[in-house]
């Protein structure tokens, strides 16, 4: 399987604290991966580095078939290159309707002028409706997204991610604060998405990770502690010591 994203030897420190320490990580083109680790293991910082929010002190981040470095690109350029990110706290545009949120995320020319002269085509409207169907928000399209429940906002954000048609989805704690049924639905959406693209899920909840049924990477103190199936890593002595044992 060819590699989509390769992170090698990356380190970053904040005021002397090494948040990421010589981290290496790779993921293939259609693969689901869960990242687990205790608080402060560097999970969110890892996402910040890949999406361009944080610049690493050293190391390389190589992307795609053409092996371009993501380190020289701005957040917006990285997003256009095909990296989509979902934040821990649901961040949708609460003042705007679900429809507008999804339309904003649809993969289209992002320049100011094309956007200024943009007119909705029937095709785009159909796409939005298909996405809404997928995330179960068809009835909510005309509502302001600020009125949605917490779980619905999480789905909307996942829907916006899918609308971007990214090659890599970075999802930070998608199931936080969801009811069991909502979790199941979320799992289904992510598993479906991973059939055609790479999905990286950061999660605390072991049950949720088990349901994703994928390879797991355990982070600890900014580097990879173990990698493999969930059963494999949970039986690893180091992992038990630093994470599960506590």
């Amino acid at each position, binding site marked *: 399987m060819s590699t989509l994203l390769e992170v090698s030897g990356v380190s970053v420190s904040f005021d002397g604290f090494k948040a990421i320490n010589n981290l290496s990580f790779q993921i293939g083109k259609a693969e689901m991966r869960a990242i687990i680790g205790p608080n402060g293991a560097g999970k969110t910082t890892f996402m910040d580095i890949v*999406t361009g*929010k944080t610049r690493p002190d050293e190391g390389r981040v190589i992307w795609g078939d053409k092996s371009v470095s993501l380190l020289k690109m*701005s*957040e*917006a*350029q990285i*997003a*256009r290159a095909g990296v*989509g*990110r979902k*934040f821990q706290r649901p*961040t*949708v*545009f*609460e*003042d*705007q309707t679900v*429809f*507008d949120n999804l*339309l*904003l*995320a649809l993969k289209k020319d*992002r*320049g*100011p002028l094309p*956007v*200024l002269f*943009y*007119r*909705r*085509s*029937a095709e785009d*409207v159909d796409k939005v409706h298909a996405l809404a169907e997928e995330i179960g928000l068809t*009835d*909510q399209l*005309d*509502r302001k997204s600020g*009125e949605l429940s917490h779980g619905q906002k999480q789905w909307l954000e996942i829907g*916006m991610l899918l609308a*971007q048609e990214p090659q890599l989805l970075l999802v930070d704690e998608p199931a936080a604060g969801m009811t069991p049924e909502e979790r199941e639905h979320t799992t289904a959406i992510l598993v479906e998405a991973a059939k055609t693209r790479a999905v990286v899920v950061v999660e605390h909840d072991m049950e949720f990770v088990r349901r994703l049924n994928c390879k797991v990477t355990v982070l600890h103190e900014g580097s990879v502690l173990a990698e493999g199936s969930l059963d494999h890593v949970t039986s690893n002595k180091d992992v038990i010591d630093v994470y599960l044992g506590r």
Partner: protein
Amino acid sequence: MTDRSLFAKNPSVLIFLACLGMFTLGVTVFSEAFGSGLISTSFVKTLGKTLCLCLIALAMDLVWGYTGILSLGHFAFFGIGGYMIGMWLMYERTRDIIVTSMAGQEIPPTESEITAAIGNQIFGVVGSSEFPAIWAFSHSLTLQLILVVAVPGLLALVFGWLAFRSRVTGVYLSILTQAMTLALALYLFQNDSGLRGNNGLSGLQNLPGLDEVPQSVVSVWFLWASAAALGLGYVFSAWVVSGKFGSVLRGIRDDEARVRFLGYSVEAYKLFIFTITAVIAGIAGALYYPQAGIINPAEIAPIASIYLAVWVAIGGRGRLYGAVIGAAFVSLVSSWFTGGQVPSIPLGFYTIDWVDWWLVLLGFSFVMVTLFAPRGIGGLFDLWTGHMAPARHGQDLGPDAGSLQEQEADQ
């Protein structure tokens, strides 16, 4: 759900245009020049100027209310627009006077003599008679009209590029825009700035070559022009904010980082809206100052831009008609209070004289609006629209599956 026309999506645009048209017609009918004379020429000018202030308030609403950039520098662009048109007005009119007065001489004056005489006339007040380089185009109306748009636009482009590229946001950006405004005002106050220092440009109400047209007529012409500009500006603003572009702008206001991670270049959008609103402000200024008759650097002082923010906040930011209402209401009430027409309130031990106390009242209203009515005067319209039935035919009436269906609710 494909796109409907702009007017179908925003019925308020048509209502606004109708009100504006009726207002203009009404003033024309009651003006001294074309009607009964109920409205004095000076009040026609006040109304025309108010329309220009409404136009710059629209620009402020685009940049602040919709994009969340609290610019305290838009009056600088307004002033620059005024200076640009003022240069031509002053040059041409002085030239007319000079040519007329020299026509009686036995030897016809040469072109360079005329130019020297104009320079002497205009710049004598600052102890100079040379034309500074920035007056190079002042002989041409076309070129100065281009500058009305180009100078504010370029200044905003350069300033915005520097500020947004370094990701200066929030209150720091406001301070930066204010510093720009102050620097510009201080520069213009200097006599050797080339724009007559603190004297500014004057006599702008006289249109060159139209001496025989009375001011009562000119004032109505400018009222029409200002109304037309405001109408066009309103339609343009409504178009900008109604589509996907407006969606991006509001996204930037509410969560800049999220927009960036969606792949939109936030800086490019900010720069775009900052520049376009500076151009609108320049046009508004170019229409305002011929009605005011005089422009000087004090007009550009930061306090003017702060007033602008107050108007938009009181009117209701984030909605176009709110900005217009705020600018019109506050500036008209302000000229009523500061004009000494409001009776003082004797308290026995102290008399409240509104000329002095108006600013206190304005400041108090601003604080009250911010605290208790963040949607401003424009928010009053929500009281009305809130009572109209929602268009949810055939669907749930409420948000949850257990809510009444439409048929059930009708029973």
